[in-house]
């Protein structure tokens, strides 16, 4: 579904990402791991056409993302708070996002009901603007908005951050169920290898913008990546 071809992104002299080839198969859940500055967010921003590559191309469904934006109609994403409209209430934000994907308020309400337990009664009906919510609830709002539109491609950057343990379990369950039911292609980054190992069927390890390990699960052992991080810490 996603094809990355000779993709490079440089900031001045420094290359934040250098990726020869990477294919993300339709219906797969791919975890992107790496230490800070490994290039995870840069990769996501390049896929979403939010930054300009120095060279190379990203293709979604064989179409270069920069050439047309048809991919946007089936892609859900949440990278950080730049994806939230902070002066809206969560309901208003969901309705706005829903309408961009052609959903009316009734349809949005229906979809939101799937995430009721994940939101744990702290997001909807709170009479609060997004900017006044806790980091965890803002994170939930962004994730739900990305997922509720039933995208074919879902991109989430560090979705487990700020979430309490119960919510982390819930989001993993929701992601797995969604992937099984609709064969959604997912690209998820995280510092937490355990979370990714639980849900992903592939883990890509980045270091300084390069792919240094590409594991297929359960065939490969995710402990390999764990060992890499241990070595880095020493």
């Amino acid at each position, binding site marked *: 579904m996603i094809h990355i071809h000779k993709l490079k992104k440089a900031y001045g002299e420094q290359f934040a990402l250098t990726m020869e080839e990477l294919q993300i198969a339709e219906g797969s859940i791919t975890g992107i791991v790496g230490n800070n500055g490994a290039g995870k967010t840069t990769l996501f921003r390049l896929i979403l056409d*939010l930054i300009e590559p120095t060279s190379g191309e990203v293709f979604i469904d064989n179409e270069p993302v920069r050439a047309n934006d048809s991919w*946007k109609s089936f*892609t859900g994403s949440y990278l950080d708070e*730049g994806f939230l409209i902070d*002066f*809206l209430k969560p309901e208003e934000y969901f309705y706005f*996002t829903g309408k961009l994907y052609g959903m009316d308020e009734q349809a949005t309400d229906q979809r939101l009901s799937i995430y009721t337990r994940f939101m744990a009664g702290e997001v909807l009906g709170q009479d*609060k*603007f997004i900017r*006044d919510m806790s980091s965890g609830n803002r994170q939930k709002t962004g994730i739900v908005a990305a997922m509720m539109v039933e995208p074919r491609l879902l991109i989430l950057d560090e979705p487990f951050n700020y979430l309490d343990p119960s919510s982390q379990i819930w989001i993993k369950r929701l992601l797995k169920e969604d992937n099984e039911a609709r064969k959604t292609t997912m690209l998820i980054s995280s510092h937490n290898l355990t979370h990714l190992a639980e849900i992903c069927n592939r883990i890509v390890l980045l270091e300084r913008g390069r792919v240094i390990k590409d594991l297929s699960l359960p065939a490969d052992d995710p402990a390999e990546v764990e060992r890499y991080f241990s070595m880095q810490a020493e």
Partner: protein
Amino acid sequence: MMLKHAIVWNLLKHSWISFRRAHYFQRSLGIRVLMGFTAMILLGYLYGAGMMLPVLLQNFFPEQLPHEAFFSLWLYLYFAELTVRLVFQKLPRQMVQAYLTLPVKRRILAGYILSRSWFSIYNVYLYALLLPFYYRTLYLHVSPAAFWMALLGTFLLSSLNHAITIGMRTWPARLSRTITLALFLFGFVILGGILYIAEFMEFSRQLGQAVISGQPMVFIILLSLIIVLQLLAFRGLFASFYEWSGAHSRPGAPGRSSIARFLAAVPVYGLYWELEWQLITRNKRAVGGLTQWPWIIIALPLFFYFDPFGDAERYMYLMVMAAGGYGFAHLQYVFSWESRFFDLIAARKIDMEVFIRSKYYFYLTLGAAQTSPVLLLVGVLRPDLFWPLFGIFLYAVGPVFAYLFLTGVNSSTRINPNKKAGFNPEGTSGTLFLVIFVSMFSVLILQGIAYLLPFAQKTGLALLTGLSGLVFILTHRWWTAAVSKKFVFRKYHNLKKYRE
């Protein structure tokens, strides 16, 4: 003792660093020179006004000496100054927020904030007007002592305004609102000349005379008031600390207004119109411009009606700032307002042409809604100015809006619309100054051309501005498409800057 001094020293050092690293100092040399030049021009204007003031007062009040006439209006001047301060002057509290969680005594912080607040342009700028005036009237014609006493009185009155303003920033919101309302009512009824105008002018004149003759009681009373207000502000700051650290619960967010519902129901553009309405009504900085509009609706027609200089048509170019309604102020920063969530806009399937067109329709409609009552009142009070003002309205929502959109796309400044601006320079740049100048002076050029036409100048101006306005309104689909193309072209650059 040493530790306390070290803290105060660090606070002062950090103030200096924050001043040096402020947004406006990070600009290019050319823009800084332009901003400096503009500041010099404004000071020059004040100085020139101070030099001219004795002559003007002599003409208006021939039976009085200039300084006596001036003192009759002294309190009016300070009431106007207080109004400016209440709107714009801020408490420099951002300097200490980081220290609230550190082991620094709160009374040191409170004392620091209060003393830091005195280093403000509002405590300085009036001297550019008053120094030359006092010198020409008091130093040369009364006595050097009277000159120094007047300066001391000016300093105390200005300080009293400072103490009132800073006090208002530290007391509970409800109390501050009540005092502001009481002050404005007082100003409207008494200073506004509805009641006791002669008595109040006489009181003001006597106060001025008492000051220049050095009557100690006046100085003692003023000084005592300042001290009491500063002590009250000092106490108020302690309560404010809890608010700043978020200890107080926030009030519930307002629901969807009927206007928002109405806007949302509009086909195609409704989705963005509702968002635009929420953006400008739910963010402090954005809503500030909207709440000033009722005053403009009253003030502008009255200004034209009284026409103090008797040649209102000559400075119609200034009206371009008001005639476009809220759009003129807002569109100067267009796209910077959305900078915080533009990643979302860019990652979703949004037709940029529709997005920009919807913005234009929104501000065109809002401009019409805001300017209509002004036009109506001007039509009644100054019928001769109705068509020139209508022409300026069309000009503002036509070529000026197009120009603002096009220059707005070039601006990659990130703005937090929920941060109160006051005189906060965030988002202001030399380019924006230029944009405003160009917008206004383009009308001046049309005004010049109007002289050459075989009509009365007002008719010529109305025709030229109205026609050029109509051309841009009718061709808006073309130029909004050009704006959207330009934005897409600059997308990566702008998004990068918005994120920084």
